[in-house]
């Protein structure tokens, strides 16, 4: 006789309402009596209901993996397995999606088939890590699931103290604001660190993220140890006829209130003929006016990315945004992309050698200071790296003259 469906009066309340219900999906899996996972999903529902009743979680980690890798599987063992034995093991495989998260229906169906054979039939697109999460399988089935996905061309993502799965925005595939080839940069960089992803041995996690412009649709600045964010160096491009058409259609008040006045550095002004006056030396490439006037305004032609290092969430010293370490890295030729990979290698290597255990890159920089970090990875100082110079006088400056000479020499060689 088939195992009975658990009673789930609390979860049942999440089946009503207009948003798609994950509970309805879980129940569908639990009721698929012809599938190997039906009983597992019944007990999973039972345990989840138990969590809702008692307001506590009942999963514990452990050590489960695939042959050759030390990361990529998130092991979950139930603490209440006596009551819910069929879901006593409910591990997740973190699998890296195609850069930009593109799928054909054929690929999605193949993934569903694999996960019906080897797992629970429950898949998340995607986790906060950027992985496809194949959620729910037993220790003995992990290897078989991975082998099939790996044969399809998919690889496990990161977990633990290693390089993690990355994210890039849709970028060049469908966005006119893209300032570099996000998918190419992401694949080049991340695929250069697969050893550090699959066999984690860094002081702590290290994340890369890639966003094509300052709108930062990849949430890179705060969520990445190394964020690559698109920008440009020359003047932004203006189609004055389209600017005038926008003003004609929407009125001067809207143009002034929603575009001119919202420029953070007052770099915009409206001419008497309703064309736009741009002070490009004051522009900080924030994207606001370009977002509003998508037809009239565009990033410049000399494109690349700013590189910011050290973003992270709370643990241990508090939140940090990434800060600029390269104001402009040209991303045009293959060599430019290779240079990005080389820089990433220097950053990770310095992090591996200098961070304390369980210390993120931003915390290490906080501890040792930006200047020591820059010297370690051999990058030149730039005023774009600071909000303002120091305001306290507690600093020993007996190397001042030598530093001035360095600055002057750099300026001179740049001018030549």
């Amino acid at each position, binding site marked *: 006789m088939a195992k009975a469906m658990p009673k789930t009066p609390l979860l049942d309340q999440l089946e*009503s309402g207009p948003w798609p219900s994950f509970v309805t999906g879980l129940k569908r899996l639990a009721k698929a009596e012809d599938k190997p996972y039906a009983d597992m999903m019944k007990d999973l529902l039972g345990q989840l209901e138990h969590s*809702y009743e008692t307001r506590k979680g009942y999963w514990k980690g452990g050590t489960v993996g695939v042959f050759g890798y030390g990361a990529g599987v998130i092991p979950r063992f139930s603490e209440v397995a006596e009551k819910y034995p069929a879901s006593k093991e409910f591990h997740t495989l973190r699998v890296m999606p195609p850069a930009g998260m593109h799928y054909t229906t054929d690929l999605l169906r193949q993934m569903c088939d694999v996960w019906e054979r080897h797992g629970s039939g429950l898949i998340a697109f995607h986790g906060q890590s950027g992985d496809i999460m194949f959620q729910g399988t037993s220790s003995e089935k992990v290897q078989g699931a991975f082998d099939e996905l790996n044969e399809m061309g998919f690889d496990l993502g990161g977990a633990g103290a290693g390089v993690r799965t990355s*994210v890039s925005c849709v970028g060049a595939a469908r966005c006119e604001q893209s300032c570099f080839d996000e998918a190419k940069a992401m694949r080049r960089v991340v695929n250069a660190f697969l050893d550090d992803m699959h066999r984690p041995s860094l002081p702590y996690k290290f994340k890369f993220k890639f966003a094509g412009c300052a709108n930062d649709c990849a949430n890179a600045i705060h969520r990445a140890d190394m964020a690559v964010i698109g920008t440009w160096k020359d003047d932004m491009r203006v189609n004055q006829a389209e600017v005038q058409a926008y003003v004609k259609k929407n009125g001067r008040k809207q143009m002034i209130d929603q575009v001119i006045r919202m420029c953070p550095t007052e770099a915009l002004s409206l001419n008497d003929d309703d064309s736009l006056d741009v002070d490009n030396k004051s522009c900080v490439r924030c994207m606001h006016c370009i977002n509003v006037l998508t037809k009239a305004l565009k990033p410049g032609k000399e494109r690349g990315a700013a590189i910011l290092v050290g973003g992270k969430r709370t643990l241990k010293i508090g939140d940090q945004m990434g800060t600029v370490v390269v104001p402009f890295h040209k991303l045009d030729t293959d060599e430019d992309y290779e240079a990005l990979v080389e820089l990433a290698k220097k950053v990770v290597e310095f992090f591996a050698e200098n961070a304390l255990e369980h210390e993120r890159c931003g915390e290490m920089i906080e501890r040792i200071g930006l200047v020591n970090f820059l010297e370690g990875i051999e990058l030149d100082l730039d005023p774009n790296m600071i909000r303002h110079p120091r305001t306290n006088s507690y600093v020993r400056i007996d190397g001042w003259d030598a530093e001035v000479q360095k600055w002057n020499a750099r300026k001179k060689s740049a001018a030549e």
Partner: protein
Amino acid sequence: MAELRRPTESGVPDPFPYMHPLMKKNYGHWAWHDRPRPGVLHHVAQSGDEIWTVKAGTQRQMDVGTIRKLCEIADTYAEGYVRFTVRSNIEFMVSKADKVAPLVEALTKAGFPVGGTGNSVTMISHTQGWLHCDIPGTDASGVVKALMDELHDEFTHERMPNRVKITTSCCQINCGGQGDIAINVQHTKPPKINHELVSLQCERPAVVARCPVAAIRPALVNGKPTLEVDEKKCVCCGACYPPCPPMQINDPVNTKIAIWVGGKHSSTRSQPSFHKLVAAGLENNAPRWPEVAAVVKSILRAYQKDARAWERVGEWIDRIGWPRFFELTGLPFTKYHVDNWRGGRASLNASAQLRF
């Protein structure tokens, strides 16, 4: 024993085999875009090619039945190519304008709300929670489902001053990240320690090192080596719990929910900002978290009514000031809102600029 299969370390897959042909053809050569209606984007390439994208909400944790239903819609009403956004919305790309309306209708009929573009409240980014995490104080999928039911009309319409990104997190590590509105677990009591298990399960020096306020120290209880917490110093963050499960931080009564506002990743207009605490002590009230929904909605209503076009939540508050924010939302202002962590003095008003 059979030889084990060695992995192919293929890394991040090439997206081009899975990309809509028009996106492949015009890769890096797009000209401009607009939004014909909420949930629909229209991009025009330099070549003159046009592509329409229909965006729909999902439950993120999807059973194969749901995924196959989305595939069926993609094959019947779109062109077999989809992508997901970082907030778990699904996007269907089509090459003709007249395919948009039937696709929107099919998605709506199948229960996938179309929206999440422009100045809407888009899908709440969420974490794993009770379904799969090993340290959660609350659920994630359930909070998101309950909230998105309430905010459904704001997902399908574009009537906010600017986009609103809401996040949830089930512990104070905050995997959900920064948000215009962030719904995060906040513990209110120190961990309860099972002294019998500490020396068996925990690497004690690593746990001591993990504490941000140095409140954990080695101890002997009933002759067994264990750890103890200086409860006066403890900030109840729960950082000791992941490396040492016998230091249980989650509690059915004392694990509460806090609401934070004004987080922003983009450098657009204002610089990126962290979210700030505005409400706490809310009941972790499964399965629908009505107290949380009420606070989120009161903040959204005030923002919708008072903010100017293009102002994100944090930018709106920067303009109107915190006194007005607390007045408009009716939320109480307490001593817990004042930052006393290192560097916290930088968040005080060091000026004679005042608002009445």
